[in-house]
């Protein structure tokens, strides 16, 4: 905690659109007493002025600060700095783009490329059907569907040529002719999964007629993209590939890997949560090993924070871009984010919580590639470390914001 404490941003702003309220925290070296601080809203932004300088948080359209509503509040921890509460006026909540699974539609042309290197992996195709897959364990329960001989037990849920079947974190597509040039399919050499172990994979539907996992990776950059379910059906994780509507792949390529993972995952969390009233997620590797327990708290949040020394390139919550001195005027955009509680499962601590979540029917499993699970953990802890210490944890859980 000592180390991360140093990373606390100078100014942190958390706004709740639904509650129409906000919290502003100034690190103790930014200002010593509330009298030194002037907070005022101007058109579509919030200005904070202290003896050290002026900060501007730009607000989304139709969101503004109620003039004169900013009030200092006492803090429990004197060392943390100054806390202010403020009220908002929200005429229209900001909406974020859905995940790829929400965006893909029938009768539209899509191409797919590797997120890491941007090279095209599948030919441009038009889907006739875009259908959701059942929950990962559906075949375990299929015997309970009917009291009598039940023909569903042997159904295979594989995509036809013009199908896109969507799971929670992946989609299934039919292989096409270009795949031989763009993809490599080989047994997963690193996987320690035994044959019997496969069925424990909680995120896979009926397509389990295999004894070894055949990993699909990009021929160009060797990034793992998904799995080959059969000779014809491929499974791609939404965190590893990008869909493009135009013919040109390169233009879509995102610069920052972690930012892509963050936005893709948070969008998916919001979708699953609103569709199925799920708030707790267990993020697992394909082996079924739980990596992170994640509790979705708020989806209406806007955050802005001002680091002392703008971090570069490591993709923490606040993207770099403003390299001016901190005592000068700084400007940041308050961005939509989801607030989550999380618990890394790498260690043996909190085993009681882990087993309680496992037992709980309301916890939803999400499978992501092993390395992606690590990346998610990395971005969550980076977000946590930027927060004022009092906001970093709640009971046993840590707190993070994920941009949408």
């Amino acid at each position, binding site marked *: 905690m000592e180390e991360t404490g140093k990373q606390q941003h100078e100014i942190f702003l958390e706004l709740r659109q639904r509650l129409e309220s906000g919290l502003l925290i100034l690190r103790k070296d930014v200002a010593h007493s509330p009298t030194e601080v002037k907070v005022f809203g101007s058109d579509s932004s919030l200005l904070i002025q202290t003896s050290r300088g002026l900060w501007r948080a730009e607000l989304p359209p139709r969101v503004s600060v109620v003039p004169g509503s900013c009030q200092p509040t006492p803090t429990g921890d004197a060392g943390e700095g100054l806390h202010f509460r403020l009220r908002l006026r929200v005429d229209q909540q900001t909406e974020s783009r859905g995940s790829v699974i929400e965006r893909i539609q029938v009768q539209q042309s899509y191409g797919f490329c590797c997120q890491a290197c941007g090279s095209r992996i599948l030919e441009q195709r038009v889907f006739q059907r875009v*259908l*959701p*897959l*059942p*929950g990962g*364990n*559906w*075949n*375990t*329960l*299929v*015997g*309970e*569907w*009917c*009291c*009598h*001989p*039940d*023909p*569903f*037990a*042997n*159904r*295979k*849920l594989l995509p036809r040529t013009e*199908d896109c*079947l969507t799971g929670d974190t992946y989609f299934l597509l039919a292989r096409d002719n270009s795949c031989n040039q763009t993809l490599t399919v080989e047994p997963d050499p690193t996987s320690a999964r*035994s*044959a*019997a*172990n*496969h*069925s*424990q994979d*909680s995120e896979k539907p*009926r397509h*389990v*007629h295999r*004894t070894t996992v055949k990993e699909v990776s990009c021929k160009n950059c060797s990034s793992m993209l998904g799995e080959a379910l059969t000779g014809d059906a491929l499974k791609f994780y939404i965190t590893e590939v990008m869909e493009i509507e135009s013919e040109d792949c390169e233009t879509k390529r995102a610069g920052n890997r972690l930012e892509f993972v963050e936005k893709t995952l948070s969008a998916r969390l919001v979708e699953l949560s609103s569709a199925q009233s799920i708030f707790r997620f267990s993020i697992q590797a394909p*082996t*079924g*090993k739980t990596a992170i327990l994640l509790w979705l708290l708020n989806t209406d949040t806007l955050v802005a924070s001002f680091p002392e020394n703008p971090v570069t390139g490591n993709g923490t919550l606040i993207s770099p871009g403003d390299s001016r001195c901190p005592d000068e005027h700084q400007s940041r955009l308050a961005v939509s984010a989801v607030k989550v509680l999380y618990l890394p499962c790498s260690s043996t601590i909190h085993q009681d919580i882990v087993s309680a979540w*496992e*037992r*709980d*029917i309301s916890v939803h499993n999400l499978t992501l590639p092993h390395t992606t699970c690590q990346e998610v953990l990395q971005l969550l802890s980076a977000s946590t470390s930027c927060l004022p210490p009092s906001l970093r944890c709640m009971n046993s859980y840590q707190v993070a914001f994920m941009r949408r």
Partner: protein
Amino acid sequence: MAAKRKADVTVPAEESDQLLIRPLGAGQEVGRSCIILEFKGRKIMLDCGIHPGLEGMDALPYIDLIDPAEIDLLLISHFHLDHCGALPWFLQKTSFKGRTFMTHATKAIYRWLLSDYVKVSNISADDMLYTETDLEESMDKIETINFHEVKEVAGIKFWCYHAGHVLGAAMFMIEIAGVKILYTGDFSRQEDRHLMAAEIPSVKPDILITESTYGTHIHEKREEREARFCNTVHDIVNREGRCLIPVFALGRAQELLLILDEYWQNHPELHDIPIYYASSLAKKCMAVYQTYVNAMNDKIRKAININNPFVFKHISNLKSMDHFDDIGPSVVMASPGMMQSGLSRELFESWCTDKRNGVIIAGYCVEGTLAKHIMSEPEEITTMSGQKLQLKMSTDYISFSAHTDYQQTSEFIRALKPPHVILVHGEQNEMARLKAALIREYEDNDEVHIEVHNPRNTEAVTLNFRGEKLAKVMGCLADKKCAQGQRVSGILVKRNFSYHILAPSDLSNYTELAMSTVKQTQAIPFTGPYSLLVNQLRHLAGDVEEVEASEKTEKIEKTTLKIFKNITLLHEAGMVTLEWVANPLNDMYADAVTTVVLEVQSNPKAQKVMESKPEAVDVEEYQRRLEIMFQDMFGEDCVDFKDPKNLSVTVDGKTAYISLETRTVDYEEGSADDESIKEMVELAVQRLYDAMNPTM
């Protein structure tokens, strides 16, 4: 039962005595349960399932034969797809606007199963019945019902009993106009470790609609079955083998776990042999089970107060095979139940070549699955990768069926003695055998008559229930005890299927009805002499009363008469106004009065009579005749006409004084409360006057 009547065609459905039971599915088949009940203009649908063997619209019951908008009530017995799979379609895609009920546990599990089913069927079939959104949106339209809770919809009373079978399964008792119908859904009369046996209702139904899946089969006794199961497991681990039990996650697995845990508890020598329950869903299924403990049997409900019976002492959950060391004898319960793939299949393939090992199939098996195949004890099996393996492990089949067998059904019917039994949910031959067996059972019994029907899909069974109409007398009409033969008059009120007779004034107390009165007013131009009118009215009614004029009317010179006690006549310049409270009698009186008014107004003859005989009666002559008449009536002593100003008649010490001018009779003040003499004398005075002075 009355014979079918032709007249019924014209009788409105509400009054018809015909009760129709028509399976739209599950008629001589298993799957797509859907039975329509029609009686007294009410329509009820029992279950709304899909046929698992068919796809798209073909999987639906024959719903095109009915108008969904006419269904008042839909009851779902349990969460199996062949009983509820078509529900989202029916709720969202048809004109149905009635109400839908199922138990709490059914609703929870229903949603869970259907949300997977809808996706699986939409991916594998070409035409979609409904989408996930339809399912989601239909949830709000489903109401829940507690066991034994009585609900009423459109006059249909219904409640449900535990049916055994699966968690939350219900049997519905439906009562329409006093006729009771019991629909069993799928049921089992055998209590198991966690579910209670189907209850035997305390009310006897007139009609029993029962499942017939197992026809005339008889299940192995529960104790024997459990003992066989435990002994088989014990034998396998005793010979150092591994025991595989492929099971499904929900229901039977919990039952087997409870049995094994108890067996291990009683056999300490087995304690070093691990039992694993390997299902990634295991814990979640348990959570569902723990939530709906109140739908289970007493044993579990009592046990839950002390400690959770679903927390097993001797069974470990195996979430990942990483934790499984396959080093010696063990018992593993793994899904899926038919070993079509997955963990159970993989364990089977790695264990099947060792003759010490054994597999126990505890459920039913579908043709074409490995579980079914090994029941024929083949020498080899083919692995999923195509390899041939010798099958040396032992295979046992122990049925843990949750359906009633012949013995249970027969006992159930014996307890209820329903006059009519309708068989549904059974394969044609099984059903026919069951029907024959039931008929045989009662053919020599003169006291119990049971008709057994096994309608095909869309074929209606028509029964007649001639209800005797019974109306209860309520309110002030019931204050006095009625005597035999006494007439009761009041208003007949029909509410749903019951009748009551009420005094009109009680309507608002006992019903939502109110009593209203209509006051009629009729104005007639009248310019003739008022006195003539009064005179004519007296001739008509003999009951014409002058009403004291109120203050206002005095000034404008209004006069008011009350004729027949109910018709008010108001006379003012050039106009006569009649007022009365409308009812058939008063209307008739009013007509008569109107005629008199019009007659006096328009008939010149009537006026002439009046003019020509202004002093028609000779008062002296009238008095003399009156005296003679009263002497004839009462005797000479009674009549005192000496004083012409004080004519009197005395009868039984009561003296009545007669005034010749007004032809009225008065008692001496305070002398009597008996009006009979007065009335008699007055009538005589009037009649004599009329006889001497006839009009027109």
